[in-house]
């Protein structure tokens, strides 16, 4: 698709017009910084981007169609893991919350606390990748390695609890697959003490670095009203100054009992809603997640995590939509049941898909180097965009 778009421009001092052409540049699907297989068609005029057209579908794996052929609702969970493979626990959390509402099951409190702990670990892990790869896109390679090193500590905890590092199949409908190990509380606390200084180091190295600020402040500004019109959610929305978090505005599980803040972009380094704000919201959210972890591990009650596992998962016919706050934004599951043990329809509203749709609005008029910065600040994972 190589249309030549010509435009006439009058160059000052020459008195005659200079014909220029706009070039169509294809960024991806194979590109070091598109965070997966995404094709961005850039229409550029020199270095200025005139339009951005994302082309998706390179990672479509028919998740929703697969679910219709499962013999049991339980089998959906390994597939749900693989949507946003970076924060797999959050996907599972959304699904089991939705299923338990459909089946009208109440899970033991211990299960709720452990699920929240795992979800907040998943938030930390996802934001570490987001922040690390963002630094790498901007050119600073070292913070990425630091983030990976910290991530390994969390993955070790996951591996000890459920046996897998990246894709867990841990949260089951009605409970969990395993109870946590006896030294879990100690490990969580030691992680919290280990991690806080690392956040400070990250801020020293990357967040307040003048060059990083120059690259990200006032770039890709997404005004609050535009963000709401595009239905973006998560840190992308909070970076624009809108204080909306499903954990506070439409709470689920035990979030109402926990004390944490919702960081919001304030335009500290540039304009409200620029890339730096979105990035900083993620860094501050990691800090808040550590607070939540410390509170939840104090309050963790004893109990049996498999007490409420249903013998047979056969929900009544009906449908419902449940949303949860994943690190990327608002993940929604729309479940339709026809009364049998096999799912009839599992539709996923993916936050990355919706956030990506706002990319053209943010990127028009910026430079090519900025497109990379803006894409990194939205933090997409193609597994979730394409499902």
């Amino acid at each position, binding site marked *: 698709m190589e249309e030549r778009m010509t435009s006439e421009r009058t160059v000052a001092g020459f008195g005659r017009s200079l014909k220029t052409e706009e070039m169509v540049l294809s960024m991806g699907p194979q590109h070091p910084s598109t965070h997966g297989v995404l094709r961005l068609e850039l229409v550029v005029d020199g270095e200025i981007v005139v339009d951005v057209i994302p082309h998706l579908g390179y990672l479509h794996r028919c998740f929703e169609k697969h679910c219709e052929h499962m013999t049991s609702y339980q089998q959906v969970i390994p597939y749900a893991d693989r949507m946003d493979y970076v924060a797999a626990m959050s996907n599972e959390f959304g699904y089991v919350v939705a299923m338990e509402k459909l089946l009208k099951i109440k899970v033991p409190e211990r299960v709720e606390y452990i699920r929240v702990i795992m979800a907040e670990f998943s938030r930390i892990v996802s934001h570490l990748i987001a922040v690390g790869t963002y630094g790498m896109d901007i050119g600073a390679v070292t913070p990425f390695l630091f983030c990976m090193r910290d991530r390994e500590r969390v993955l070790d905890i996951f591996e000890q609890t459920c046996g897998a590092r990246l894709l867990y199949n841990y949260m089951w409908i009605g409970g969990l*697959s395993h109870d946590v190990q006896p030294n879990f509380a100690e490990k969580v606390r030691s992680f919290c003490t280990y991690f806080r200084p690392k956040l400070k180091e990250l801020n*020293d190295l990357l967040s307040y670095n003048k*060059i990083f600020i120059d690259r990200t402040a006032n770039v890709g500004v997404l005004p609050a009203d535009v963000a709401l019109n595009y239905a973006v959610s998560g840190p992308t929305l909070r970076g624009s100054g809108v204080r909306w978090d499903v954990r506070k505005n439409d709470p689920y599980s035990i979030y109402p009992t926990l004390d944490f803040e919702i960081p919001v972009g304030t335009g500290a380094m540039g304009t409200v809603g620029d890339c730096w704000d979105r990035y900083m919201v993620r860094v501050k959210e990691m800090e808040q997640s550590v607070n939540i972890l410390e509170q939840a591990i104090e309050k963790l009650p004893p109990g049996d995590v498999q007490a409420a596992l249903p013998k047979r998962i056969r929900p009544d016919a009906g449908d419902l939509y449940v949303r949860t706050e994943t690190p990327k934004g608002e993940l929604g599951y729309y479940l339709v049941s026809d009364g049998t043990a096999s799912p009839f329809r599992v539709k996923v509203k993916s936050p990355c898909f919706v956030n990506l749709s706002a990319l053209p609005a943010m990127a028009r008029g910026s430079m090519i180097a900025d497109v990379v910065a803006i894409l990194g600040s939205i933090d997409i994972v193609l597994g979730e965009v394409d499902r």
Partner: protein
Amino acid sequence: MGTYFGNIWRGIVTILIGMGVTWRHLFTPAVTIQYPDVKVKLPERARNRLYVNMDDCIGCDQCSMACPVDCITIETVKSTPDVDLGLTSVGTKKRLYVTQFDIDIAKCCYCGLCVPPCPTECIVMTDVYEFSEFDRNNLIYNFATMMPHDVEAARTRLAAYEKDQAAKKAAAAKPAAAPSAPAVSEPPKKTPPASDNKV
């Protein structure tokens, strides 16, 4: 004017702070381990390659039904009452010959959903993660321990037993009709082996 000099100053200061961080990290120990000379010990719950202890398998098919990617293929043949397949380690009586138990470990997604439904806990996820092969077909693991002629023999025995049962049923329904049918003589029955039925 103030912002101009302020920017330059902030630029210099933040760059120096960043350089301090990386300088300090030159002297911190590395976190890398030198695989394959040094290997990490996996936790006890680690979910890696599957293993099936066929002595305990009763051929119930629960694992195969639980698998979300259909990587387990099981075929069974019913045993006849004259054969004793023994007990599993938990005391269940085995009633089925498991003639085929294939796991395509390349398809397996390592979710572990096959492990809890097993009544005898014979399918487990081990901590083996170094099992790459040069030929893709070697990734289909055949766990069944029956030789093809044993499978054939089991099938024949089952077919004969069922034919027997069907004939017996027909004969039981017949005595009300013709009392004498000398021409029809039943084929000689195979006498069962003289072993007692162990409980």
